């Protein structure tokens, strides 16, 4: 009798603990890739207002305020938009420290680098502005900010205003050269809606109009098409991301978080 009770007690305690641990670790809400921390991909569970690190499973990185709308993430620096009574605030945060910058418009087309500098497109003038060391300035270029990768700012511009559909040229601006730098056009006539600048190697992913529809293509930064990708449509509802660990472009299904790897060269 004692033995049975012991076994039963152990079973109940273990099951309770396991249930608790599983509940803490599992998350089923949709998540979107937003950036990296120490080369580990970070996802925004926007319904939960929680950021997760992804290393074969999702682990909570940080939770943010319900009033915030996450715009960009890089190495712990987070850029949020906050709606206020008079307009909007841009909030730049790292490790509980926040700085707020009032804006007259919604914050759109934003990127943040690993030092917390923010680049965004001003809605009124379409010019790109930066906020660095608490100072906002117009960098003198018009375009739609895409991302900051390896010290270069990537942005897009409309390829041909006569075309109704999404058509963009992708530009690269070396930020280390500051004012003397001239932007360089690297890819022409792509969608500009699914652009991924691969941080390793010289490749860019985007979609191109082929045979009546947009199809995924991997480009070299020399502008040449490197490879047309055959990807199941269920993985194309989100923009893929590059995985340093797997050295691959990862496509994922937002409903199941099922992932599909596409190996890319590192040179």
């Amino acid at each position, binding site marked *: 009798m004692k033995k049975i009770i012991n076994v039963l007690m152990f079973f109940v305690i273990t099951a309770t603990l396991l249930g608790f641990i599983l509940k803490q670790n599992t998350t089923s809400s949709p998540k*979107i890739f937003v950036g990296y921390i120490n080369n580990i991909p970070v996802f925004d569970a926007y319904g939960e207002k929680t950021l997760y690190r992804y290393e074969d499973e999702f682990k909570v990185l940080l939770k943010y305020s319900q009033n915030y709308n996450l715009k960009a993430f890089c190495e712990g620096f987070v850029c949020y938009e906050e709606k206020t009574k008079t307009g909007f605030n841009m909030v730049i945060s790292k490790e509980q420290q926040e700085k707020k910058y009032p804006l007259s418009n919604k914050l759109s087309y934003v990127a943040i680098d690993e030092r917390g500098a923010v680049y965004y497109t001003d809605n009124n003038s379409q010019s790109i502005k930066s906020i660095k060391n608490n100072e906002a300035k117009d960098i003198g270029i018009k375009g739609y900010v895409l991302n900051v990768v390896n010290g270069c700012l990537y942005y897009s511009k409309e390829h041909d205003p006569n075309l*109704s559909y999404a058509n963009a040229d992708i530009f690269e601006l070396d930020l280390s050269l500051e004012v003397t730098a001239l932007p360089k056009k690297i890819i022409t006539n792509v969608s500009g809606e699914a652009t991924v600048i691969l941080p390793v190697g010289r490749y860019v992913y985007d979609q191109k109009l082929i045979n009546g529809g947009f199809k995924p293509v991997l480009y070299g930064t020399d502008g040449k098409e490197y490879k047309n990708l055959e990807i199941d449509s269920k993985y194309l509802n989100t923009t893929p991301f590059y995985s340093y660990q797997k050295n691959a472009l990862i496509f994922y299904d937002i409903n199941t978080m099922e992932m599909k790897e596409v190996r890319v060269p590192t040179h």
Partner: protein
Amino acid sequence: MFIFWRVLPRSYAYPFAFAHLTIEAFLRLKTLPLTARTAPVLSHKNYNPFGMPLPGRQLTPGSYRYGFNGMEKDDEMKGNGNSYTTEFRQYDPRLGRWLSIDPEFRAFPWQSPYVAFDNNPIIKTDPRGDAAGDPKKITQAASNAVQKVKDSDNGSEPPKCNIGVNSAFTEITGSNELKGMRANEMANYMSTSSNFTPIDVSEAQNAANNGDVVIASYIASSGSGHVALVVPGEASMQGTWEGQSAKSMGGIPKVMDTGAGMRTEEQPVNYSFGKPKQDEVVFYKYTPALSNGNSQTVQETITLVNPQETITLVNPYTGVKTELPKPRQQFFSAAPDPTLGKQLQQSRVDIVKTVGHILNYFGF
């Protein structure tokens, strides 16, 4: 593990062996993809085709606010799951009928204004209570329109967005009111016609999923403009719309597009309209029954002249009265909410069922 077996008496070793296996199983479970794990079921409910809950086939049925077809439950009326409230009408799933007449009854002269889902609850939905929609019809019409445009191509893909949209629109609605119009003309017509109501981009995908016809339009100051039909499906989480990320908008709607170079049954709308044009794109929902034909929206007021005999509809603009036949008498049994004990007794889990019996015995 071996040490435990040697050192401890057998009676104590069993639990450790069990724990070892459990932890190993747990570690293996952690390596499984997220989809392979199971989550606790908080509630479930089985319905008959018209949405009546099947007795005994539900778990904690009162805990969730929404029910059949995503409609909001109104349990205070007739007990759990026996009444639903929507934007326009109350619905009784036990009868499979709405409790008041269809606000768009003129669009459906062939059937009773109390009929729900056109008597076809498997295929159609009506989450607002105004008109049963069939999203599959839109998908099929979009597919047919793209094929029709492709068949008319001669090796190139010139702009035919108006032809694609008009073809699908006519197939879905039976209306020819967009026939022969170019994209700019269509957009201008929709902006002035009372048959079309502008809606926000965030509403477009849900409207299409409910079976509503939604057209995205852009007027070009020079050129022919652009139109695309919103198709049912899952909203896209790719890219931006007017600078806002898809996730911050809850997704970007998908459209059928037969514009220049485009012959696609489904793609995110941000692929159909480039970034500089997006803030000028307007989404129009087709709402024909709200029109009196004079490009003025008419609001109907219902006056119950004699509830036992007739219902009279009075048009506030024209003063015209419409007599409707006396509605069928409907009787409802106002079943009270089952007690907690009785609800727990319906559980499939034995221990919960037993707790339910005990609570019921003490009158809870």
